[in-house]
């Protein structure tokens, strides 16, 4: 049976508490995984594994956290995403909120796109699609 958004959030929160050793009250919808919760690159893989287990679903590589985009010169110029790059990123991350990022699509700000809400949106969409 499909979970409600609140239930998904609770499970995502528990997952992050375990994976990142943070306090439950630090895990808010808008907290970013790297900036606010201190996740490092290897933690992303850990989080993917844990989410797969918790929600009993398969998360294909690159679907939740897109890779390889930054190596493409058509997508990145002078440390910022080009219009094409931004378009591509939006397409591959329909679960993320781009409203802030698109004002200044600086590559160094990309981690801010990965928030708790991004994860909840992703799981919710995945569940609807299943």
């Amino acid at each position, binding site marked *: 049976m499909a979970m409600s958004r609140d239930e998904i959030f609770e499970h995502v929160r528990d997952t992050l508490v375990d994976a990142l050793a943070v306090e439950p009250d630090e895990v808010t919808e808008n907290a970013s995984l790297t900036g606010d919760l201190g996740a490092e690159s290897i933690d992303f893989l850990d989080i993917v*594994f844990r989410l797969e287990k918790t929600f009993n679903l398969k998360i294909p590589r690159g679907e939740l956290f897109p890779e390889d985009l930054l*190596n493409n010169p058509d997508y990145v110029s002078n440390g910022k995403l080009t219009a094409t790059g931004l378009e591509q990123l939006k397409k591959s991350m329909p679960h993320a909120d781009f409203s802030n990022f698109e004002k200044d699509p600086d590559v160094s700000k990309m981690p801010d796109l990965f928030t708790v809400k991004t994860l909840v949106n992703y799981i919710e969409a995945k569940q609807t699609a299943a």
Partner: protein
Amino acid sequence: MRWIWIDKFVEFESGRRAVAIKNITLAEDHLHDHFPGFPVMPASLMIEGMAQTAGILVGEARNFEEKVILAKIKRASFSGYARPGQQLRYEATIETISPEAAMTAGTIYCDGEPLGQVDLMFSHIDQNLSGLNFPEENFVFTEEFKSLLTTYQIRR
């Protein structure tokens, strides 16, 4: 000095589970400093022992073709001491293994009593860290290492 913190495997089920033992002895130099008059096996070295047990289990699951690197200690908790004359038993199981990484869960026993829980995550680094190139030769599972497996009798 050889950085080998397990003495032998006593059980090995490919891709699933491995059990290794380690006998603690006062011939080990570090025990005289940790601590003077009160020798106990450092917890960090028990984590290393589990990482070797679980890392070899993970490596063997892909026929030692991947470079398996300890990426994260997901959990490490200990409830007592392990002292010279005692035997440690490292029981590791693979929880998940994918092209990029593996998760293992492990329990450490000391003379048959549960002593600790060490859960680890390993990265197959060639499949991760996109954009970085690593040497082609497998610097994790070297030829020297593989000859050890013959000793352990787990080489295919």
